[in-house]
């Protein structure tokens, strides 16, 4: 484990009690994030990426949720903290931006009241100080006429503006780590470009580390330094962005990369990964991807593969890795 790690998640397990038994949403996830780094987490719905973020924030309702493992943030295990200690960190050192700004912002308060609350709560600012700082932050996220907009309610703002307000709120206390869960998924593409440019700009100014959760591999390629690929509650691959896109080491990532339509050259046919993600209540005993994997053999179906280092800084949870060899066998 790196000494400089800002966040280090160790063997995180999150399960939920359901009518059909315990659903294992996150199963033994470990990773670390250094100061100033951007880590992308990709995967499809239900793979556990949002639950991972929510458990770091201490936002998993218990019951029905149950969390195990360790989440070390600036030397403290967040999972062991009581509600009071946790809310002292949240919004201050650790902040989160959600996918739906309309549901994340309180409709009954003005934008300004919600922004000021953060500074009054964490910095002991007076109302006037907080308001001045809030206006300055709204200007930094390029909200036009910030002095007027601060007294608006969320429903008066466009989707892109609401997401800027969310980002402004998250960055008010200059957090060491920002968790962004699909921050641009609800936005149009030109507005998404604005918000991504803003996140890059603020990252350079403040050195905030970002954990960016997205299903969009294009956004990951653009924003992240390192990537975790999740599937059915597990990390199946971890690599630098360049390595992941050039030569992925897990068949799921191979399939995903082939499944995205390209804007440039038109692909004759997309790679379709047949079948569905296994349900969190009925996890297969072997490799969780085996049923959808064209390379799976008997061992894959019976024995769960460990996450192994394939190349330096590149790990994969696949018995067939390194996949270069597999590709050569296919050619032969």
């Amino acid at each position, binding site marked *: 484990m790196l000494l400089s790690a800002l966040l280090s998640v160790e063997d995180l397990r999150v399960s939920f009690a359901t009518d059909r038994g315990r659903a294992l949403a996150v199963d033994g996830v470990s990773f670390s994030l250094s100061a100033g780094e951007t880590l992308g987490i990709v995967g*499809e719905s239900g793979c556990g990426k949002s639950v991972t973020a929510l458990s770091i924030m201490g936002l998993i309702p218990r019951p029905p949720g149950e969390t195990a493992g360790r989440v070390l943030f600036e030397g403290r295990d967040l999972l062991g903290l009581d509600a009071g200690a946790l809310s002292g960190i949240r919004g201050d050192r650790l902040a989160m931006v959600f996918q739906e700004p309309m549901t994340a912002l309180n409709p009954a308060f003005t934008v300004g009241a919600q922004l000021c609350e953060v500074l009054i709560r964490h910095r002991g600012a007076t109302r006037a100080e907080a308001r001045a700082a809030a206006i300055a932050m709204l200007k930094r996220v390029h909200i036009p006429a910030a002095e007027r907009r601060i007294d608006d309610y969320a429903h008066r703002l466009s989707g892109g503006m609401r997401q800027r307000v969310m980002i402004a709120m998250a960055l008010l206390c200059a957090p060491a780590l920002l968790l962004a869960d699909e921050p641009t998924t609800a936005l149009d593409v*030109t507005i998404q470009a604005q918000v991504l440019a803003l996140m890059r700009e603020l990252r350079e100014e403040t050195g905030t580390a970002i954990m960016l959760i997205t*299903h969009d*591999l294009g956004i990951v390629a653009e924003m992240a330094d390192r990537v975790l690929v999740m599937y059915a509650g597990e990390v199946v691959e971890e690599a630098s962005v360049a390595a992941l*896109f050039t030569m992925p080491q897990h068949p799921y990532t*191979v399939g995903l990369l082939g499944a995205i339509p390209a804007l*440039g050259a038109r692909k004759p046919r*997309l790679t379709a990964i047949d079948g569905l993600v296994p349900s969190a209540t009925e996890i297969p005993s072997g490799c969780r991807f085996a049923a959808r994997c064209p390379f799976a053999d008997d061992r894959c179906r019976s024995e769960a593969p460990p996450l192994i280092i394939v190349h330096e800084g590149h790990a994969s949870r696949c018995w067939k890795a390194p996949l270069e060899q597999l590709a050569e066998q296919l050619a032969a």
Partner: protein
Amino acid sequence: MSAVLEAVDLVKHFPTGSGFFERSAGLVKAVDGVSFAVGASESFAIVGESGCGKSTVARLVLRLIEPTSGAVRLEGHDLIELAPAELRAARRRLQIVFQDPYGSLNPRMTVSQMLTEPLALHGVVPPAQRRERLGELLSLVGLRPESAQRYPHEFSGGQRQRLAIARALAAGPRVIVCDEPVSALDVSIQAQILNLLADLQQRFGLSYVIISHDLAVVRHIATSVGVMYLGRFVESGPSESVFGRPRHPYTQALLSAVPVATPGRTSSRIVLQGDVPSPLAPPPGCHFHPRCAHALARCREEVPIAEPKPGGGTVACHRWRDLEAWTTDELAAQVSSAALTRLQAAFTPLDRPAASVAS
């Protein structure tokens, strides 16, 4: 090209603020003169951001709402002129697949009921052969025949979208309008549905009208494209031309805004300022001028008309001749090693129809 479906100068104005005393406070020009044509085995896509009017065009084409003016010709007959009974008959040839496979299927109907209803309604298949046709439809979209007795809630999102496609296919259409057909689906499932749509098109010579906000999806599936902004096409034409050599500043900005799965891409991005203006009060002249880096005084006053551009299609911009043609060639230079391509090929063997799906 003889067009199977043709939309001619479609206009739809919605009155707003119909209070008790004020009859109509204003007009939203949701669709303001849109024309296009689709031939057999072709796909025309309408792409644009939320509120540009693309879904309204889809509804106008099907005459689910009445246009203010304009014509929709299906195999030469104007749908707008048809009496209700004739329109119902014509809809056999013109079907729709909606975005939300959770909202567009009746939860109280079994698959068998929902797929045989169009057969009975249009009288296309005699009762004795309906069971056989049902099995055929299910296998066409890659679902098992056993699915027939199940209800929509027993299926995943991707499978429901397959059911919606099967229902659209049931009556033997020439044209299917697909309104955001894959937006609600995960990437891997999205690829399954896009491949299925391509297979069905090839097999039956179907024409598609695709409504989408996703430029990469449109690039993949469409033979021609219309880029819509506040009710009008700013640029339209063959896919190769619109995507390869976009001439309108909005098309260029839209294409440059899409994140591309190529790390370290160096291309210059055109970041537009501000939001799409409200359709209630669109800017005068060219609707795009407040966000356009190239706008002149003329753009603020005069509505640009669509002019033919090199490579086919039209562009509606006063300045397109002065602006450099923007190329997307660099986007085409996606990293794909031989090893990766070989691995990806293993996912869809050519001897197996891509429509097959487990469970």
